[in-house]
């Protein structure tokens, strides 16, 4: 069984981004970039399925700038067997990425695609569901446990108020939630080995996909900042403030 794992290059989760003064976007020049954390969980899950003998090959895919090669190398250092970069300088929105991934799936014929549930830059939480729709496959989003048997995936997923378990036919799309696993750190020998793994580059036009954005970003602004609060000395003062000033208890 082949598993496809889409990975996105995003601003590192420890970075607090700043909005550009002209409102055109956020300033990501000279900011540390990393693999989207939910995609790391996806790579980890795919590699574990391979280590368990369930999967035979793990293919990482990234869509975006040439620099996304680094993200693919990071996935390969974690254990992905090869990488595919769909290279473009164009702004990519989730629907376009889903179409690119669908085209890659048509070619690669994976039985399972494991996406991160959301990217921590645009916070969209769409791509996996959209890919499943375009491919006509089932989807099991926000997964906290995945097992594969008899041509089906059994997926425990996080829902409001608890968890549910779905049984979906393969091929399918799974999206990862935080509890699915704890991704490994790539070791130095594996980072070296990853440099020699195959990395293929294609263009959206090669895949016959129109990636034109459907949403125009008119402006990006700072959210309202909370005004500075005050420190209280003890519980009595806190209770007094809550009762008599804020009037919330």
């Amino acid at each position, binding site marked *: 069984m082949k598993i496809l794992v889409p990975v996105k290059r995003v601003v590192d989760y420890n970075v607090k981004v700043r909005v550009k003064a002209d409102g055109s976007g956020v300033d990501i020049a000279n900011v540390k970039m990393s693999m989207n954390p939910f995609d790391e969980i996806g790579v980890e899950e795919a590699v574990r399925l391979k280590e368990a003998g369930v999967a035979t090959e793990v293919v990482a895919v990234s869509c975006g700038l040439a620099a996304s090669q680094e993200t693919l190398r990071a996935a390969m250092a974690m254990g992905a067997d090869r990488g595919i970069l769909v290279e473009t300088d164009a702004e990519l929105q989730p629907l376009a990425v889903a179409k690119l991934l669908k085209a890659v799936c048509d070619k690669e014929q994976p039985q399972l695609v494991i996406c991160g549930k959301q990217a921590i830059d*645009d916070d969209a939480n769409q791509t996996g569901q959209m890919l499943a*729709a375009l491919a006509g496959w089932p*989807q099991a989003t926000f997964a906290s446990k995945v097992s594969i048997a008899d041509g089906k995936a059994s997926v425990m997923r996080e829902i409001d108020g608890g968890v549910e378990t779905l049984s979906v036919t393969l091929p399918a799309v799974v999206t990862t939630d935080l509890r699915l696993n704890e991704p490994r750190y790539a070791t130095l020998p594996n980072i070296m080995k990853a440099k020699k793994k195959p990395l293929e580059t294609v263009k959206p036009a090669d895949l016959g996909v129109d990636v034109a954005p459907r949403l125009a970003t008119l402006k*990006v602004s700072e959210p309202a900042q909370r005004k500075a609060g005050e420190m209280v000395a003890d*519980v009595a003062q806190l209770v007094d403030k809550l009762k008599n000033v804020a009037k919330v208890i």
Partner: protein
Amino acid sequence: MAILVIAEHDNQSLKAATLNTVGAAAQLGGEVHVLVAGAGCGAVGEAATKIAGVAKVLVCDAPHYEAQGAENVAELVKGLAGGYSHILAAATPAGKNMAPRVAALLDVAQISEIVAVEAPDTFVRPIYAGNALATVKSADAVKVITVRTTAFEAAGEGGAAAVESVPAAADLGLSALVSRELVKSERPELGAAKVIVAGGRGLGSAENFHGLLEPLADKLGAAIGASRAAVDAGYCPNDYQVGQTGKVVAPQLYIAVGVSGAIQHLAGMKDSKVIVAINKDPDAPIFQVADYGLVGDLFQVVPELTAAIG
């Protein structure tokens, strides 16, 4: 053109998130219809007719909608989409699961978790864990949107909508629900609670988490939330998590106990009306967003606070 709101429900009752979604729909200018897709969900359809501002309730009652799987419901919505300018769902796990699938089937963008309507085609949504707000304009014929429920007033009661039964779409048979385990709780839902007591890694153990926070929450009639660190450490279930990738809340009062205040956590609670932070580290980032900060040992402060609240 009319606006379709996809109701969130459990076949017995309507979830409160639906009311906020109708509240957002009311700002778009158009007749609001509500779709209730489920099995044996007549009572939900009935409840939806009473929402103020709703003109029509579409009920689709069929066995293959019982679990409300995204595959089958999206297929149904795709068939209904022709008559609508907007399709809205709440930005809850259920809405986030389904809405992108609907959008892709219609070949349109999906606009995630809007917090304001600027115009019928222009919306504001948070990006980068709420550290920036993007104003986006959609060029698509149908706008498929998820709504951050805390950003919109809930629609009231007093409606008298007509009910229309709509035929089911085919059962795609792609997915089957094996089991569903819901945690039963007497407490208010996190998303709807007026007061939230949230715990972080500072509590040190699951015993402390529950032992210290529950009596305080009981006194305040509060829901209990948690930081990701507390969830990761196994102090409480995953659905307690407040933050960028967990729940986004905006209660009247948010009491953060032993929460350091990572940006991912702040993303989920900084729109609360009043924030109280209790932490032994005076440099904890949580104090930068707190209205009232108390530096102290939570093991002493929390029981004291519980006792002090009448």
